[in-house]
């Protein structure tokens, strides 16, 4: 049997984050929003990190955002081929999240700060689908 490729580090959901990983599996990027101050936040937790209320709701984000910052790693982590971008995307709703920008050249020329990006879902296992981002088609 051929040796399997090394897999990337995969997350393990907790009760507080399960909705997020169920969302990505269903092709949705789910954020939370405070009912009182109406602000979206990330990463998931069952209370608003600004005002502390437990009155929060889960909603489906648009999956659109802009490239906020990144590095291009020239050493490969397990499951990656160098060079690859490790990026932070600022979502339309406000929160920022780490991700990889994919489906484009992994170069500073292509990875222009503030360029519009959109989510793509990458299935890694039965449980885990990761939200990655690619340059938006309508640029």
């Amino acid at each position, binding site marked *: 049997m051929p040796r399997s490729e090394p897999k990337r580090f995969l997350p*393990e959901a907790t009760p507080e984050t399960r909705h997020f990983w169920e969302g990505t599996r269903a092709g949705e990027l789910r954020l939370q929003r405070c009912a009182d101050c109406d602000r979206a936040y990330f*990463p998931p937790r069952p209370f608003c990190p600004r005002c502390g209320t437990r009155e929060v709701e889960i909603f489906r984000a648009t999956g659109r955002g802009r490239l906020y*910052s990144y*590095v291009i790693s*020239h050493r*490969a982590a397990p499951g990656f081929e160098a060079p690859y971008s*490790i990026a932070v995307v600022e979502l339309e709703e406000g929160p*920022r999240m780490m991700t990889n920008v994919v489906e484009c050249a992994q170069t500073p020329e292509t990875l222009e700060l503030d360029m519009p990006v959109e989510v793509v879902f990458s299935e890694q296992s039965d449980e885990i689908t*990761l939200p990655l981002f690619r340059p938006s088609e309508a640029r």
Partner: protein
Amino acid sequence: MSCDVAIVGAAETTELGRIPEMSQIQLHADAALNAIADAGLSISDIDGVATAGEQTTAIAHYLGIQPNWVDGTSVGGCSFMLHVRHAAAAIEAGLCETVLITHGESGRSQVGRGGFPRARSSLAGQFEMPYGPLGPPTLFTLPVMRYMKECGVSEEQLAMVAVVQREWAAQNPRASYRDPISVENVLDSKMIAYPFRKLMCCLVTDGGGALILTSAERAKDFPTRPVYVAGSGESVETPMVSQMDDFTSSRAFRMAGERAFASSGIRHDDVDHLMVYDAFAHLPLYGLEDLGFVERGEAADFVWERNTAPGGRLPMNTNGGGLSYMHSGMYGMYALQESVRQLRGTAPAQVKDARISFCLGVGGMFGASGAVVLSNEVI
């Protein structure tokens, strides 16, 4: 806290760099024994212990100390700045008399060193690790593209930080790297994580350091010149660099810095010597701005114009820093050691008549900060 407590013992491990013959706990002990000798004390005189990277229980037992007070605050490489702050408060409050703070790390040789596993269910395990970061070179560096865009900073200016610090290291016989380098050399060195080249990233070495603090009143009876704790500050922000509030400024730096200035009553002009923890070349730029030595976006020009270089008006990272002197992983202890040497007048690259040193540490990836104002006079 106004010079009521002093550092009366300070030392690093006998060797620095590559020390495969010592385990990590022995690096703590080697530095501790050197600091105890420096202060003219014996182990039985120590009644307080603070450390990070190892358990306080392990260090106290290994050294045979029976403490009345311990502090295991562990927030990364600036933990020792927080230990100085907490120890000063504990001594002032009468909880203990003589505190030993130790650091030791087999960063390069990895002898007897526990790992730092990230649980897959931790927030960083879920929302950062799946995207392929390989430790600090791909995490600590993540905000810098945003900083460079907003502040108009070039890759050449980022490289200059490393160039200037190598000039300081050239004067230091214990520095790992001492040969002069140019901006071109830095930019031509191996790409690690764009825009960071190898020479913009810290060393990975073995070593340790220890400090001994006691009341200013008792400090007069010690063989060493007292270095007073004139003020301090601390804060934490986030364990995930992707979630820091502002990618162009560290909230923890600002909060720790403001409190350190306020508690010591000094102004920026009073600072003769500055240490800013430099695991990577951008940290001194954030530090200069977040502490208010320059306005937002001005730090790169300030360094480029040689204000922090030998002969400049604000000597910074005079041991050569984590980029050229040494970096075991939790570098904060070495920044404190250099501040003490400068104020004792024993630094290899001595700043003439240095009276006040400001020492800023960082923990995690912009996750935490500790700031200490030290002086060789009661201010």
